[in-house]
């Protein structure tokens, strides 16, 4: 409790921003369609996954191209513990986080001990996620290629994290998880371990010369990172009421996870959430543009997949204009103004 109060004082500005962001996001469910609400829920799911990714790849500088591994482990842990052992999905979320953290520690230990860095580390994470996807595809205990369907359990909505009648409550659950993870990230940025991660990201030799064990810093980062991303995966299972190897471990999932923090700002507290907001608005705008284009663009009406192409094009422009994300772009603008 004392620590929490101290944290609030030390990072008053970030905590204020968090309060405002959560307050604004809490208004979303009021007066939007069920469809828009489900878009918002997925946006927050991937924001949460991105918050996890950002700890390892943004703060500790170890670029992961395979965070689907943690996402999928979280998703499957909830699915399996619920359907096979009737374990509460809340406990399942925690267990999934722990499974992912242990997976991160083991695979991270091997990768980092072998000195994998940069593109090689990214490739290794990609290979690990693929390995999990193929393993789960052939593993009958977890439903193999068919996947696992989560039955609607009935009973207390909160206990089973299923809100088939009141999806807005489901939205509040994921918003709560995003808020808690953001508090954790703020605490990390104010802590010794956060300082260690940044130092290792910037220069491992200089970090070791100041008494930091780079392996230790990276392992702590990978465990925290995996845990948070697994929470997102576990929630995803309860949201979709279904999981299969592609949805859990597919390469596209890894891309979805890293896209948001990259668009918002790698290694920043707000990058993942901001990126998630930008991408969902962008996705909706391109979708509705193709559905009901202005009269001079009549030709594009209803063209299949065009919204995705537009989405991709705009993304490319954003990445070229703001290679360090929207937050980085904003900082550069401000520095240019004051200089």
């Amino acid at each position, binding site marked *: 409790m004392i620590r929490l109060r101290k944290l609030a004082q030390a990072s008053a500005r970030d905590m204020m921003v968090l309060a405002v962001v959560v307050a604004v996001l809490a208004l979303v469910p009021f007066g939007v369609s069920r469809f828009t609400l489900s878009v918002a829920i997925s946006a927050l799911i991937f924001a949460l996954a991105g918050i996890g990714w950002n700890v390892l790849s943004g703060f500790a500088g170890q670029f992961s191209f395979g965070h689907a591994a943690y996402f999928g482990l979280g998703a499957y842990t909830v699915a399996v513990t619920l359907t096979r052992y009737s374990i509460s999905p809340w406990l399942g979320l925690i267990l999934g986080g722990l499974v992912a953290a242990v997976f991160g520690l083991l695979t991270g230990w091997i990768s980092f001990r072998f000195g994998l860095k940069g593109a090689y580390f990214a490739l290794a994470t990609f290979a690990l996620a693929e390995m999990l996807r193929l393993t789960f595809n052939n593993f009958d205990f977890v439903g193999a290629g068919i996947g696992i369907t989560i039955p609607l359990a009935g009973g207390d909505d909160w206990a089973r994290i299923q809100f088939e009648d009141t999806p807005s409550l489901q939205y509040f659950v994921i918003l709560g998880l995003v808020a808690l993870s953001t508090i954790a990230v703020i605490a990390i940025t104010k802590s010794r371990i956060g300082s260690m991660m940044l130092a290792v990201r910037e*220069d491992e*030799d200089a970090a070791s010369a*100041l*008494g930091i064990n780079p392996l230790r810093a990276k392992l702590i980062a990978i465990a925290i990172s995996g845990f948070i991303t697994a929470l997102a995966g576990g929630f995803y299972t309860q949201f979709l009421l279904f999981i299969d190897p592609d949805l859990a471990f597919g390469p596209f999932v890894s891309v979805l996870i890293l896209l948001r923090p990259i668009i918002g700002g790698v290694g920043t507290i707000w990058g993942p959430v901001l990126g998630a907001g930008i991408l969902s608005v962008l996705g909706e705008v391109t979708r509705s543009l193709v559905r009901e284009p202005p009269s001079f663009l009549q030709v594009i009406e209803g063209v299949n997949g065009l919204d995705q192409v537009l989405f991709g094009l705009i993304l490319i422009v954003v990445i070229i204009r703001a290679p360090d994300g929207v937050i980085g772009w904003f900082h550069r603008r401000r520095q240019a103004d004051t200089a």
Partner: protein
Amino acid sequence: MNPVLSVRDATKRFGGLTAVNGVTLDLGEGEILGIIGPNGAGKTTLFNIISGAIPPDEGEVIYGGDRIDQLPPHRIAARGLVRTFQVVKPFSGLTVLQNVMVGAFLRRSEHDEAEDHARKMLEFTGLAAQSDRPAKGLTLAARKRLELARALATDPTVLLLDEVLAGLTPTEGAEMVKVVQSIRDGGVSLLVIEHVMAAIMALSDRIAVIHHGELLAIGPPAQIAKDPGVVAAYLGEEFQIAPD
């Protein structure tokens, strides 16, 4: 003399090149031991051996009563033996304050304590005005100070400084010399590699001369300046030891 650090017969080869060849020296408590020698003499390699960056092929390094020559750099730094880099390695993406806080966190777990201590170090090295600037934009002189401030923030017992004066103007250099002296006055023992002769002669209690990886002479500055071996081997290459 009570040695805090002893190097015994340290040797390091890179392929056919023996960069450090059987060097033996002691650093006394509270002493400033200057290390001079021409370019490529093996001075930085000696620092790499002591700091654990490159384990020696032969020989030992003894610090605080223990052999440390097989320990990784971070364990050695954690024991209070800390080095700076000749080619400075600032954490470019962080602010000056954050850079120094990395060092301060070695012996402090609380953010506020680490920040207070880091600010003191920035004050001490004359960088306080630049605390919130990104390390990326600093001048060379400021980056050298940052390198020092960061190492100092770890509360070292022994500090290894690799050419902290190189590339500085005479005024900046004189300020740096003062800073180094007050570090010693604070009880830290120092090994100082330097090319700027006037500075190292004035600063050091003793000077070690390294030549082709070997220890050519060691003793008080006045004695080193008169040593016939040093004069013959070293002053003949004087053009090489001019500040770069």
